[in-house]
């Protein structure tokens, strides 16, 4: 597609359930980011994939959070045993090969997660 696509756009889940959030990056982009944004707050870095390198997981808040990227394209962010504090917008972004085009990253519209 023309832009970064995320699904679902909205998800309401019960506390304790697992959720999966999907991101389709811009075609050809090798870098993919996940960020979390709580209401009225900034963007909290979660995880970064760059090509075939090991992902930078330094921003994942707990071991309930994990992400994978299959075939260097689609990524899935999984939150296990969701808690109310996990409620936030989860934003995915992608960029072209590092060092080209200034590393500009392009965002999707986000997945709004509400844990009740």
């Amino acid at each position, binding site marked *: 597609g023309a832009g970064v696509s995320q699904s679902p756009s909205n998800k309401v889940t019960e506390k304790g359930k697992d959720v999966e959030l999907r991101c389709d990056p811009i075609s050809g982009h090798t870098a993919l980011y996940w960020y979390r944004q709580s209401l009225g707050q900034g963007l909290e870095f979660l995880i970064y994939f760059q090509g075939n390198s090991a992902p930078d997981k330094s921003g994942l808040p707990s071991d309930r959070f994990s992400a994978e990227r299959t075939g260097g394209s689609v990524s899935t962010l999984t939150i296990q045993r969701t808690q109310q504090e996990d409620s936030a917008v989860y934003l995915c*972004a992608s960029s072209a090969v590092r060092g080209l085009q200034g*590393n500009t990253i392009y965002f999707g519209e986000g997945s709004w997660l509400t844990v009740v």
Partner: protein
Amino acid sequence: GESVGLHLPTLSVQEGDNSIINCAYSNSASDYFIWYKQESGKGPQFIIDIRSNMDKRQGQRVTVLLNKTVKHLSLQIAATQPGDSAVYFCAEDRDKIIFGKGTRLHILP
């Protein structure tokens, strides 16, 4: 720790005036900075970027200034319009892109 931060969380500007949004960074090794605009309910949108070998870069109605001596970045928006209402984030490239908390720009009629 090292961080990207903003001086003011909210900025109110009269329509037609110029807006200046400020940002401080602490990692002197950062060599690339970006400004993003986020409208309500949407993902952040790229506005303008600047590399550390520059001190000024201009776009359409926007100018980014970089002062490496004091580690300060600013975004200037000329002739602010109602459509400029949004939250503005600065970000720096530290091998990964790290964002500041954001400044909400409010346009007064």
